[in-house]
């Protein structure tokens, strides 16, 4: 009897864990090891390929497409992250109090998050069309038309704006959870001291949600670096004029899929995506630690 109880105890936790652990192992951890292995081979979709050492990585150095893609993904991080850290925080402060109707606004602000990126890209594509809503409004003001979707840089900027816009509600919710933990007395004390709204924001709110801002910074910089759908959908599968808007993940998808996909080279590119994402996350976390020690 005692033996039965003991085995039961030892086995049941693993039964509970089995579905989750199996999926995560099979579709995240093992594929990662496979990718790391393939990166050093010349595997293709239909052929396993052989060991080629660092050849894929050497090829990357001379691959103009790679540098273009790396530049675009890097720019994406630099432009998108500051807006994504700041705007949703302001939005959260706007809907933080339980005023009448606020619940409706919160849900409404979340709409772009719920909508699929394909839908959102089609909506934006139609708005930014040469004869779309935005140019229609610009014409009323006597300006334009602006060819948002015809120019390499305007296209990339439009995709960035779309990413920021689509993430507003998501990060707002994260900030709301953090703000719920900030004691109101802090604000009231500052208000009594005669601090204006901006002062209170800088000296009360920001320090209180600092760790959440770092979290949002880390999450959004990794997400921005991995950008695929927004650019793929607005600029098209080939990545805009002469492929100038290709991002790193678009390059992975283009290189590694298809009947004669270069799995080996695409895996090497994937490792770069993984490595940069990891470094970005560590950088943000370290900046946080240093800031905390300094402050």
């Amino acid at each position: 009897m005692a033996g039965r109880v003991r085995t039961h105890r030892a086995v049941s936790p693993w039964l509970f864990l089995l579905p989750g652990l199996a999926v995560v192992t099979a579709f995240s951890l093992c594929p990662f090891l496979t990718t790391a292995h393939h990166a050093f081979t010349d595997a293709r979709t239909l052929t396993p390929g052989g060991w080629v050492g660092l050849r894929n990585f050497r090829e990357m150095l001379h691959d103009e497409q790679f540098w273009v893609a790396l530049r675009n993904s890097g720019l994406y991080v630099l432009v998108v992250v500051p807006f994504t850290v700041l705007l949703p925080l302001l939005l959260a402060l706007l809907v933080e109090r339980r005023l009448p109707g606020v619940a409706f606004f919160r849900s409404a602000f979340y709409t772009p998050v719920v909508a699929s990126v394909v839908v959102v890209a089609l909506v934006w594509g139609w708005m930014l069309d040469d004869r779309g809503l935005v140019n229609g409004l610009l014409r009323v003001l006597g300006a334009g038309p602006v060819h948002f979707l015809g120019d390499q840089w305007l296209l990339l900027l439009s995709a960035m704006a779309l990413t920021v816009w689509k993430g507003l509600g998501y990060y707002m919710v994260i900030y709301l959870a953090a703000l719920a933990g900030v004691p109101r007395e802090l604000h009231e004390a500052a208000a009594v001291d005669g601090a204006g709204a901006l002062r209170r924001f800088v000296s009360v709110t920001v320090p209180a949600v600092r760790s959440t801002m770092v979290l949002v910074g880390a999450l959004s910089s990794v997400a921005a670096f991995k950008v695929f759908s927004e650019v793929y959908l607005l600029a098209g599968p080939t990545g805009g004029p002469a492929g100038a808007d290709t991002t790193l993940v678009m390059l992975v998808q283009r290189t590694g899929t298809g009947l004669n996909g270069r799995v080996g080279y695409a895996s090497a590119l994937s490792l770069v995506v993984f490595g940069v994402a990891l470094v970005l996350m560590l950088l943000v976390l370290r900046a946080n630690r240093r800031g905390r020690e300094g402050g």
Partner: protein
Amino acid sequence: MRSRGRVVRGVVRYALMLVVLAVTVGPFLWQLSTSLKGPAEDVYTSPPRFLPAHPTGANYAEVADVIPVWDYALNSLKVAVASVLTNLVGASTAGYALARLRFRGRRAAGLAFVAALLVPLESVIIAQLTLVRDLGLGDTLVAVVLPGAVGALNVLLMRNAFAGVPYELEEAAVIDGANVWQRFTRIALPSVRGTLAVVAIFAFTGAWDDFLWPLVVLSDSDRFTLTVGLNFLHGTFQQNPRLVAAGTVIAVAPLLVMFAVLQRYFFRGVGEGAVKG
């Protein structure tokens, strides 16, 4: 004087909320308006006309002639429902084990989920593709569901939620002789309903909205999900934006309905601290 300042601040707050509302929801309303405009109505006017002159549902019927939009919607629905079920079961059982059960290897199991969180899906997509092909599942809806069937983030959310439930509740049940499964289903699960709603919403929207993975794994157009299918409407832009608009409204409407129904639980779940990670 003070109360007047408060009124002004209140008005400014609501005015700002309306501006943000226009920015976040406005584009969808513009899309809805476009989808209701008849073929005779100019959609390129300047200044833009926000209300259709003669609202019509004809575009919704016509978009189905261009792409089998309802079949695609059904495929997306199958994938999303399956993903909700697998995530609710897989994440809550695993989360419960990590939060409440004591056994050798618990730390290692927890680390496996954290490690999985660090591996970006985009960086293993080629290996996943090879894997589902080797399993003989290439180009199937099952293959679309599998990689996200139990999200690592959802497991960790559930673990945090269970860890926040007072243990005394379960202790009483242990004394009454309840086994692990009974404790899990009768006491633990009902206490974390908010987080379950959050996981359900994340899983549904994640599956319904996913684009890169179904794009890579599906090649037979009969099995396309809505996102992959809609991508093909892209080419019809120049001909008729009304049809594209109708297609996007079909894609977004079910989600908005679901979110409207569940949003109360969602924001309560968020309040439980579910999103703090």
